[in-house]
């Protein structure tokens, strides 16, 4: 337990990258968009500023994993404790951020999209459903982005630069290949239809197994990592 709580404490010392920085950038993007919305004073703006927080979860998970693991290992903390501590922290901050996002989305609805100028926190499709559904969708999305970051970080710690590059290149090639095949056989139409027929909640529920697999792979990589 000592090790796990130490890891959480170390993450807490990095509130700047985990918390302040993404929210500051989001606040900035919010203000700029609102200003534009007020200035053009036409149709309601739909912005993608919300994406900032997800991108940040991905990048911060990736970089802190790579930076913190050699540090904690040098400070007599087990690999497993690093993993569990990091996972716990990511889950907690995802819950916290999601709750905040749900509140902001409700404020947005309540203010009538900030005087009908802009939709920033409450986007169609993504924010359909009750506050609980919105919350769950947000938490899973955030976990998904974080686990992707942590997974790549753990892979790098285990296999180092060149093999990580090859892995990412291989994944890119496979995805491009699949999308080419999808184009060739005209699968995109049905794929979009399938997406449209499912709610954001349905889709994110599908992400749960991916999150779990990513977490498991990260753990396995970290257990064999050296400093």
């Amino acid at each position, binding site marked *: 337990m*000592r*090790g796990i*709580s*130490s890891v959480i*404490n*170390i993450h807490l*010392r*990095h509130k*700047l*990258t985990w918390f302040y920085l993404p929210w500051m950038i989001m606040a900035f993007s919010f203000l700029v968009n609102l200003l534009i919305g007020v200035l053009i004073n036409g149709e309601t703006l739909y912005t993608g500023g919300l994406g900032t927080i997800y991108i940040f979860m991905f990048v911060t998970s990736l970089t*802190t994993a790579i*930076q*913190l693991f*050699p*540090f904690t*290992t*040098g*400070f*007599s*903390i*087990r*690999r*497993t*404790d690093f993993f569990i501590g990091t996972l716990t922290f990511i889950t907690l901050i995802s819950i916290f951020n999601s709750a905040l996002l749900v509140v902001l989305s409700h404020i947005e609805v309540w203010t009538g999209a900030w005087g009908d100028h802009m939709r920033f926190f409450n986007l169609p499709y993504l924010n359909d459903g009750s506050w609980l559904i919105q919350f769950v969708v947000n938490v899973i999305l955030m976990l998904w982005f974080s686990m992707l970051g942590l997974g790549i970080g753990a892979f790098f710690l285990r296999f180092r630069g060149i093999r990580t590059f090859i892995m990412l290149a291989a994944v890119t090639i496979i995805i491009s290949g699949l999308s080419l095949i999808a184009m060739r056989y005209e699968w995109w139409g049905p794929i979009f239809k399938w997406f449209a027929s499912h709610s954001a909640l349905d889709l994110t529920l599908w992400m749960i197994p991916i999150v779990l697999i990513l977490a498991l792979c990260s753990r396995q990589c970290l*257990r*064999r990592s*050296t*400093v």
Partner: protein
Amino acid sequence: MSQTVIEVNNLSKVYKDFTAVDNVSFRIEANKIYGLLGRNGAGKTTIMQMITAQQFSTKGEIRVFGEHPYENNKVIQQICFIRESQKYPDLVTVRDVMGIASDVYPNWDAEYAKALIEIFRLPMKRLVKRLSRGMLSAVGIIVGLASRAPITVFDEPYLGLDAVARELFYDQLIEDYTSHPRTIILSTHLIDEVSRLLEHIILIDEGKILLDSDTDELRGRTCNVIGHQSAVESFIQGRKVIHTESLGSMVSATVMGKTEAEVKQEAAQAGLETVPVSLQQLIVHLTRNGKVASR
């Protein structure tokens, strides 16, 4: 005989194209100060990393407090491993590092850490990333001392430290070791500086153990024998000679005897002069020759 805290048997670490550690066996006993000596790249750090489960061994057995250290909190929280290349995250300050260390090490002494920070004049609020090389080394030294871990390893802990700070480190180490006995392993190549601290020496070269001996005993049984060429040459017949050098007709031979008294007495009987050998000279000769001396 005191309790064994680390036991290593036939330990090897083989990388793709070279052997970093080659079939090494040794024991570390409780509450002694060990010197893990050897040239750069001899395999000292790799051995310590395997003992602390930071690296995986290719072959062999490691027991620390009777257990394997891998993912074993009972073991690794008893070890504080300070190494020159310890990495710190970008955003931590000296204060943060001390806070984290106090979280991690069960025996952490915050008062002592505070005192050491003043002694080494470390700026508490500065980011570790922005410290000078010497200050960075001081951070490691403070963590190592104040952790009071039953096994504390300092692996080249003083890169960039000036002579004053190094002396401070040795003094603090001896002082704190006396009041809180524990096992300390110093890995270094500044041998002369630490020779007064070391109770036991393990000398490693090219991944192999050249020497594993008590410091006093080692000092006792090695000496330079000086005299005329013929006399020295007949004296060193059948003895273990580490090094010889001659100046005109005089020859000086560094001889390692079986027991402390043996060499000196016999040399005196043969009318030869004996002079003590410094630890540094001895180690230099041993590692330069690459000959395997007796354990």
